[in-house]
């Protein structure tokens, strides 16, 4: 895959990382408010899981596209 294609793939995947949170905050019944270890699911996702995944993914794509 060319460097440009890797970058487009990265952009699309990063954007998709926003969707679960959008669903968690918009779906009736507030599933994002469910507590896991005392902290809400929305905050686990938005404050830890998704940002970390996004950072790792962006770094990997930058490394891959610069080779």
């Amino acid at each position, binding site marked *: 895959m060319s460097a440009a294609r890797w970058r487009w793939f990265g952009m699309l995947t990063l*954007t998709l990382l926003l969707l679960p949170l*959008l669903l968690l905050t918009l779906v009736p019944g507030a599933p994002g408010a469910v507590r896991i270890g005392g902290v809400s699911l929305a*905050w686990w996702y938005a404050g830890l899981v998704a940002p970390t995944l996004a950072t790792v993914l962006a770094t990997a794509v930058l490394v891959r596209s610069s080779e």
Partner: protein
Amino acid sequence: MTALRGLAAWTGPVLLGTLTTRVAAGAPDAPMLVLAAVVAPLVALLQPRVDEPPPHLVSAAATGVSATLILAASFVPLGDVAALLGGRRWHGVVVAAALLLLLALMPGVDRWRPVGLAVGGAALVLGLLALASVTALSPWTAWRDAAARPALVFSAHSPWVTDGGWFARRATLTFGEGHRLVAVAPATFRVVEQDGTGDVVRDWRLAAGDPLSVRPGDRVTVEAGTRVRFQAGKRVPGAAPSGAAWADAGAASGVGSVAVLLTLVLGAVGLVPAAGRRGFVAPATLLTLALAAACWGFYAVATAPDVMLSGSVAEPLLRVSSAVPGARHLAPLGVVALVALFVAAAGALRERVSILTGARATVVWLTAVAVAAVASLWPFDPWRLLLAGLGLAAATLAAPRLAGAGAARVGGWPLHAIGALTGGAVFAALVALGPRLPAALAFAAEWPVVLAAPAALLVVKLLR
């Protein structure tokens, strides 16, 4: 432009300050904003690297207006800092403008912009680590403690209780329980009392030390610069009634959330340049700064939920430390963080403007600084100003680029300029028509980027 230098335009004081205050206020969209603050610029860093088309007047003007709006937003927290420290708003704005003018006239200063970002980021993180150490709370424990608070009340150590705090801007406070305010300096308070079926409005002119008693349901309007002391242990007006209510903030608006995401992601693409071969540090830096800003919000609610009372995005960074015993000496770190991030962001904006304006770059930049500084003296909401600047960048710069305008020309005109003109015209028309738009398009008046960016994208695609 290295990735870190370009990223500095994103991590300005308004974005990070807004993250902190939205988290502290328990806004329904706070988790989304924190995630978008990380993801949006990462999308921009990953955009394919293409040769920049030759500058054109339309793109240069769009960049100049976007940069001026974002710069004006960035001046606001610095004006607030001056007001929160007891000075006048214009003191902070003038000092900040003078700093930018000085830096604009110093040769070779651009090389040092990452230093500004590093200093601002380090101050933000150091302050956070110190708070964690003094309170013995990790960020997730702080969140849990905040969510378990039976009521969000004034801390006995809060500056609003001990010395009296300044309001950075005009504010209306709604009291859920009886309260006794004390004017620290002479000021006028407008109190709207509920009396049977109607409201009774009373203006109270208080001298220094005079008390003002309010009843549950009263609304008190205070002018910018007013200095007031509140009672310890009383509920903070305007804050969530309890920790549980703060934690379960409710559902965010669907259209609003999508529009903010679109504005942030496309605005970042317009503003932050693609990362080069050595751009690996930028994603980690971004993650650290955005999460640090969010964590400041957690500590604010856990220790001093009154720190967003003044309505300024700068307040939590200035006052959380002051409200925590053992951390008072850290308060200057907040000022250092805000000023350093402001300088770094302004430098990155200047570079974007300079690329497109060539030999007249310095004149254009100094004009932008002057206009932005004057505009910031009006009591604008800095977050709305930032979104306006990002929205315009999204419609005029990002959309044509993502549509693949490149260096193509149509009828002698560069395609990217035609796209920018279309996006800019639709954006301006929606803003101008605003209230006259039909109800079905009301969302477009509030979020013009929702129609302006697709319009620019479509025109470029059709003409390619």
